[in-house]
């Protein structure tokens, strides 16, 4: 475990999952390792009223009903499609669900423009085919097929990035729950075992690139994950992820709470500006999701740690913010410039604190990029 840069959820929370399984007496669908209520508890954390001996930390922050709806979808015979803006925690939720339900969140197909049907079904080990001919031994099953055989959850990331014909390969998998291998004479059907399901994620910003066919839509339940706009939850998420990050990089650095507030406030302002923008040119290209905030903070932390004096400063944070959000020149830079002078400047005069530093850092970063 220590060898891994980032351990999957089932490894990271292995001990907690074991413990939860040991105390779980609820009914479990199919071959699930935990009952639906326990899955919810694992993801959303425990409360005093649950009466558990130990505390289970909250791992995904968002409306409880999204998690509940996701779990019941997996317990039914439909696939689950998590849809939302980039950085809203779709993949993390998918990973947590797979880890809790079947202790395996690594059976993932990444959807790209180059994804082919082989990545979803199976492909062949050409050398072995030449040596021994086509057989189950020379076949390379895809992660989805492996999940079918094992009766666990298969994941499909960024479903809408792959082309429509590739997406449609999922239709038969989701309805008939088997894959036939016409190349083989016998043993040529792989049946899904109970417990198999698919969690796909799709980016709502990619809408229209490769739209799902109606037939596939019908086989998925859609759960839309919104951008977290609740300040309290967002603080929790940023704090949770930052701690994890510092631990991972073994960095001893303190994130002052007022800087965290500045970060959250500036994102909230920029989101409000994006919401009131009338054209795409008036809003930042970034979705301003919580993940972006974490990215900005991570960047600032690493910068302070390696190039600074191991203290996180407002100016560094502003530099990271500009650096991460300015993707298009001049549009994004103009928006950030307007934000710094129209919002941050009056605030730094009025409130003081770290804001003047933040303003100065932002100005410098924009000057460098312009």
């Amino acid at each position, binding site marked *: 475990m220590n060898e891994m840069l980032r351990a999957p959820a089932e490894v990271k929370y292995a001990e907690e999952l074991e413990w939860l399984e040991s105390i779980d007496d609820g009914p479990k669908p199919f071959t699930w390792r935990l009952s*639906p*209520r326990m899955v*919810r508890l694992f993801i959303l954390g425990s*409360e005093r*009223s649950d009466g558990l001996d130990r505390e289970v930390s909250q791992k995904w922050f968002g409306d*409880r*009903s999204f998690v*509940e*709806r996701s*779990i*019941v*979808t997996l*317990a*039914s015979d*439909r696939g689950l499609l998590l*849809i939302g803006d980039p950085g809203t925690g779709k993949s993390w939720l998918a990973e947590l669900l797979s880890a809790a339900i079947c202790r395996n969140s690594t059976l993932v197909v990444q959807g790209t423009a180059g994804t082919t049907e082989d990545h979803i079904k199976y492909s062949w080990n050409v050398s072995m085919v030449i040596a021994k001919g086509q057989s189950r031994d020379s076949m390379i099953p895809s992660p989805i097929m492996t999940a079918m055989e094992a009766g666990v959850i298969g994941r499909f990331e960024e479903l809408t990035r792959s082309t429509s014909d590739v997406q449609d390969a999922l239709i038969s998998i989701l309805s008939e729950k088997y894959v036939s291998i016409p190349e083989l004479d016998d043993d040529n059907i792989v049946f899904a075992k109970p417990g198999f399901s698919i969690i796909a994620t*799709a980016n*709502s910003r990619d*809408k229209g690139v490769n739209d*799902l066919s*109606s037939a596939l*839509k*019908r086989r998925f*339940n*859609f*759960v*839309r994950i919104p951008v977290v706009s609740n300040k309290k939850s967002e603080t929790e998420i940023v704090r949770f992820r930052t701690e994890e990050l510092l631990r991972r990089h073994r960095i001893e650095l303190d994130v002052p709470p007022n800087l965290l507030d500045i970060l959250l406030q500036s994102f909230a302002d920029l989101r409000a500006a994006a919401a009131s923008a009338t054209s795409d040119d008036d809003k930042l290209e970034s979705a301003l999701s919580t993940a972006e905030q974490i990215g900005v903070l991570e960047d600032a932390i690493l910068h302070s740690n390696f190039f600074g004096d191991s203290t996180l400063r407002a100016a560094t944070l502003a530099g990271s913010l500009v650096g991460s959000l300015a993707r298009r020149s001049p549009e994004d830079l103009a928006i950030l410039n307007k934000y710094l002078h129209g919002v941050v400047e009056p605030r730094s005069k009025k409130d003081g604190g770290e804001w003047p530093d933040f303003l100065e850092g932002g100005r410098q970063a924009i000057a460098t990029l312009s």
Partner: protein
Amino acid sequence: MIDGTFAALRDQLTQAAETFAEAPDTVSEILTGIVDDVDRGMAERLEIFPVCHHSPASALAMARRLRQKQPKVIYLELCEDLRPLLTELRNCRLPVALQAFAGEIEGFPPDWGPLSVVAPITEASAEYQAIAYALDTPGVELVLVDRSADHVFQWLPRDDSEETTEPEAGGGDPDEDAGMHGDAVGVEIGDLRPRFRELEGHLLHHGKVRHWSEWWDLYVEQPLAGADYATYRQVMMLIGSLFRRLTPVGDRRLRTDEDRERYMWTRIREHFGKAGVEADDCMYVCGAAHAASRVEQFGLDSTAGFDITPPSGSNWLYGLIPSSHSSIEAQFGLAGGSVSIAAASWEKALKASGLTPFRLSGQKGGKPRKVKPVPADPVSGDANRLSGFLSTPPATRELDEAELLAWSVDIVRLARKNGYLSSTADAIAVFETSILLAGMRNRARPTPYDFQDAAVTCIEKDTVPGRRDVRRLCEILLGGDRVGQVGYEALPPLAQDVYDRLKPLGIDLRKRTVQRVLIDLSAEPQKRQGSRLLWTLRHLLPSDSVRPIMGVKKLGEESLQESWDVSIGSRQRDLIELGYEGVTVEQVLEQRLRRKVWSPDATAAIALRAVEDSILYLGSRRFTNELGARAIDLLKAERTVDDAPEVLRRIRALVAYYRSVDPKLPEWAETFVTTGYAHYCTLLPTAFTDEQTGLRQVGAMLGFLFTMESVAIALGCDRTQLELAVKQSHPETPAKLALRWAAQFQLSQLPMSGLRERCDDLLGNPLVLPSFPQYLSGFIQALDPVPTLTPFVVELLSKAFGRLPDTVLLPWLPNLITTLRANAAELVPVLVREAGRTFPGNLAGVDTWTPPWSIPDTPREAVTVAPSGPVTELAVRHSTAAQAIAAALGHDPAMPEFTPGAAGGSADAAPEVAALVARHPDSATATAAVLGVAG
């Protein structure tokens, strides 16, 4: 008193407090306190019936109890001054709201007006059961005891820091029917919701529900639906007391509530003392929170007094307005669909229990029935039911498979109607997911909200194909919005009058749909009255209740055919609120116009507009004259000319209108013109120099002076005043300078050649060239007051476009366009017409075209006109003196030769005239004969 009834429960709670709480004193005080409250409420000799708003359980318990007890007097927690309205309920389709409205306010901050209080009444409510029973059962008296509408506002804090009810999340987009109450203050019976935000959050979180309405339904409503009366009363009192005791100290609403309780008990005791009835025959219906009151005035036997403040001087009017479930939800911050779901549960509970509810006669299903007594509950109402209720988990109702199946099938059908690609497979999935979701949330039976979540999960995809999403469709399926209607008999006189007068047009205002009316005024002149009423309503009603599709109403314009969309039926509130202002629409309009012109911020333009409205809609000459007189006073008092363009536009239209109907202008209009002439003449020099006064305003002043000049001079004004005013004007900005030149041109103080010369100088001078566009702007504004200048303006524009450098011309172009756009009606037609006349009409003409101003003037033969008249004769007669004066003034003293007497008008003076007369001697002789001159 029932000593010891709750002793065991009290002990149990004290023990629990000691065991669990860190500071047992406070907790045990609260816990035992609520038991004490229940004890006190139950022991009161006047039977207190605690209710919760929109609670079918309350309504059921009320229907049962009324049958058992058959009280003679019912005291109801509702504004006492709304009592006369209740009988009108029988003419309405519920839900409707009782409204108290005060347009003229006194004793309140002026910006509060108009004051409006609404109390919505739905069928699935305990109060409606009580009202229906009391009004339809002979010998039963219904007494409203809560503070009056006036006191609602008297008790409101005067500062702005008033907290408002936050709507519950998840309500979705507000529906079009959600705003039916306008901005009235809502009052309702039995508001029962934690005042302690953390408590509500805690209950929702642990109940695994999202809305308060859902929590209430699950944990109180359902367990109480089949409970006996004693359990119902005790539990409701307990909850009321709990929420009350957990209210933060110093909460304003708690203080108001306590005052209301003092008020209600004072009123109850007053009535009870006078009516001489037995306490056993009475019942007091109030919100559960008031049942657990601890005020001194509580109880029939209390002697504590409460001073009820006298009402303010505001003039309160009362009426019924239509309401809807969504308006009630929006007004009281309930979750979207909760009132509809309550209504559906009420219907279902009625079916299940076989109970016949009370309905007012006159309403659907309502006929006076003799109320048959029902035996009382076998267990005495005094027994302790709380311990049992609190210690047993709520009896979860089993899954109603048929109901859920029906919902699942219906939602799929509804979704498909709304553009979703849903199928039977979805119905199965919704059914299955509902059960799974309910299971995850510890419920055996999916609640409507679980079902809604399941439907959204299974049917909602990435886009919403139609107008409504699945969440909204579920709300519609589970009850739908119900919109009430006020019947004809319950309408105020104004609304009844409108209904009657619109009938000949074939409009049925009972329908809620938009109705199209076609009026052919040439074929059916009798419909003219109806058409005028529609126009008046269009003018008075705020919304689009009455909308003309075809036809106009303007001064001097009449439509032969009109087409209207009338939706008064679905927007009755506007009409009803109009009814508070007067008895007929004409009276309301007259009052409004009068108010408008007499208000402190009235201006002459506003008064002229009122005059126009009165001509269009009222047709009363007396009233129009009165408004006109006011317009004159306002104009005289005005010290700025900001409204000059508006005044000019309106008075011009009015004068044109009057001329078209009558050769003589009304007196007020004549006075207005003469006053305006003098007024604007006086203000003109200041306006020219004042930086604050815009070009448009000065242009409009000149427009008034020049276009109204003929009328004004005919009525005795003197042109010299205007000439002097222009002479006194010394503008400094180029634009106003140009305007002054235009004025001088109009007054013949400056010839065209002089004007042209000045402008050419400007164009030729590189130092002033950059400001030339500003001169142009001034000339463009002069188009309206000095129309004869139009060819010159066209010439100037052409020259500017031809000769100004781009750096000067281009920045000014947007200004030109915006000016022309803003005053398109006055400026553009004249300019375009003149340009059409000046420029060649085809391409071939362009090559040979020379601008008219570039063609050199061919000198015409000068016509010597001999000056004549007594002055010339005098000068000639005393030529020496004249020459001396001329020399003193610096003129050439040489005088032309004149023959004295030649100026007397003989034929020699004008050779053309003499030649004409010589050519036609007969005519000349005849004319001379007619004129009585010797030939």
